[in-house]
């Protein structure tokens, strides 16, 4: 009798508990979906060909946001140029060459720390090293380098994970057939890990594309009448532009604000979507 009561009670507790946890998960996820849908709706009406391809005018209260779009594109590409080769090479070192010793642990600790440093501190560092010490000035170059270092830990850790997922037996077989270590990496390991690495790279660049704090003092411009001409020019950028028009410009039309937020969101979501598609397709096709 007693045990029967207990057991019924236990299952009631379980049902309540599960409902509660499920509710929490829903409350965590719903605002994300809500945010995206809300911005899609609010910003949709601002989007037009002129908005995407035009320059801002009337103190940015009218016109388009082309320079900000192009600027974010430049910064993302600049970040990729520096962080992708370096990050993948570092991941190859950790997964294929490094022994498990104190030095390797130091590298891992450094990567974890890089991942945890506040983005605005990256901004300070970029200002100190690239803008002032190396005299790159407030420029696309300085901002890209700053964003690269911030993106590095994401790329290294995801790339290392996908390199490690490639079965060890492939490496042993390749070496036994007379391949050098690097030939093995290039012809087998990298090829197999590529989708995973690509996913990590895109997710890292996605974060860089949406960042504001690191570029505040290293490369972002409030307003530019023309597109940047060289890596040593400052540039407008979507996230910084959104910050500017939503906090610094009085009587800013709300449509333009939502429109800018929407374009930034689409930029970031597209990258996210590409990464997700690459990952799931690679998983489906994988032979091991």
């Amino acid at each position, binding site marked *: 009798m007693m045990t029967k009561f207990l057991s019924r009670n236990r299952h009631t507790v379980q049902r309540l*508990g599960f409902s509660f946890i499920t509710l929490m998960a829903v409350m965590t996820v719903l605002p994300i979906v809500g945010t995206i849908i809300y911005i899609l709706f609010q910003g949709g009406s601002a989007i037009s060909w002129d908005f995407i391809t035009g320059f801002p005018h009337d103190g940015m209260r009218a016109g388009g946001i082309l320079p900000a779009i192009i600027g974010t594109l430049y910064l993302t590409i600049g970040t990729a140029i520096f962080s992708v080769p370096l990050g993948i090479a570092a991941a190859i070192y950790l997964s294929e060459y490094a022994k498990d010793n104190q030095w390797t642990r130091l590298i891992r600790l450094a*990567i974890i720390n890089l991942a945890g440093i506040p*983005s605005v501190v990256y901004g300070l560092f970029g200002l100190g090293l690239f803008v002032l010490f190396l005299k790159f000035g407030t420029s696309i170059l300085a901002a890209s380098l700053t964003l690269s270092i911030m993106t590095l830990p994401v790329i290294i850790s995801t790339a290392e994970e996908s390199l490690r997922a490639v079965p060890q037996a492939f490496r042993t077989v390749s070496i036994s057939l007379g391949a050098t270590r690097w030939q093995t990496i290039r012809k087998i390991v990298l090829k197999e890990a590529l989708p995973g690495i690509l996913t990590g790279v895109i997710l890292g660049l996605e974060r860089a594309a949406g960042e504001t704090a690191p570029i505040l003092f290293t490369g972002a411009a409030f307003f530019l009448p023309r597109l940047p001409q060289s890596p040593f020019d400052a540039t407008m950028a979507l996230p910084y532009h959104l910050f500017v028009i939503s906090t610094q410009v009085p009587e800013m039309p709300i449509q333009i604000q939502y429109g800018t937020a929407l374009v930034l969101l689409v930029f970031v979501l597209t990258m996210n979507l590409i990464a997700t598609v690459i990952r799931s397709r690679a998983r489906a096709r994988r032979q091991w």
Partner: protein
Amino acid sequence: MEKSLNWREFIITRAIKASGYSAVVFVLLIFFFLLREGLPALGEVDASSLLNIRWYPIEDHFGILPLITGSIIITFGAALIAVPFGIGTAVYISEIAPRWMREILKPLVELLGGLPSVVLGFLGILVLSPYLRILLDLPTGLTAFTGSLLLGGIAVPTVVSVAEDALDSVPRAYREGAWALGATKWQTIWRVTLPAAKSGVLTAVMLGVGRAIGETMTVMMVTGNAPVMATKLGSLFSPVRTMTATIAAEMGEVANGSTHYHVLFFIGMVLFLISLVVNVIASSVVFRSKKRAERILS
């Protein structure tokens, strides 16, 4: 041909090894430049005024206490949200959700991690703060509380993904053992799985808190930016200003090499050290628990 191959292989191997150490170099470089630009602040402003409660750089008041309390109260509020929701969602994803649900939820949470903080700040200004102002009957909606809410959301993905990894790595045999003894799934989660994943969950919480302390744009946009001491719980519903927001808001306007400039770098140094401590502790928890797991398995 063999010769040139060996030569190339040698160069490539060296380059890869050098890249491997780049992370260490960058951490040292960052620390060096923060010290270089931040330490002079100690010579220009004496310690007692740095630890003052007044931040008003135009009149040379460089008390960073209000900024520190501002960061603490917002982070505390964010943790109150991110920890239960983060762990709850992680438990749901790893223990309760059916497979198809997991496939939807994981990318969505990842997506939240990728949402630009400036977009959240923007919605905070336009949607959340006016709503909170009316709901809570406040003079302004730009408060520490608004910041905490959004920051909680920003920290959640970090907590979820690390905690979920930890739960996932609890051996299946633990759960099956508990079920075999007649425990319900719910009891198993609370008495077996979560305790077994304790250190990983703790790491998740720490990294989430670290993420919240470091967040800049959102807090700068929605917390009202008033450098006042936040000492009471009531301060949660008034404007505050964090260390990160102060740097972001003021660095653009100071003269390079001025006292103000050095003090802002000094604050950056403090932030760097906080994140260093949080991450070293968090990762040592992970390392330790890994060793323990290895001992059990061998």
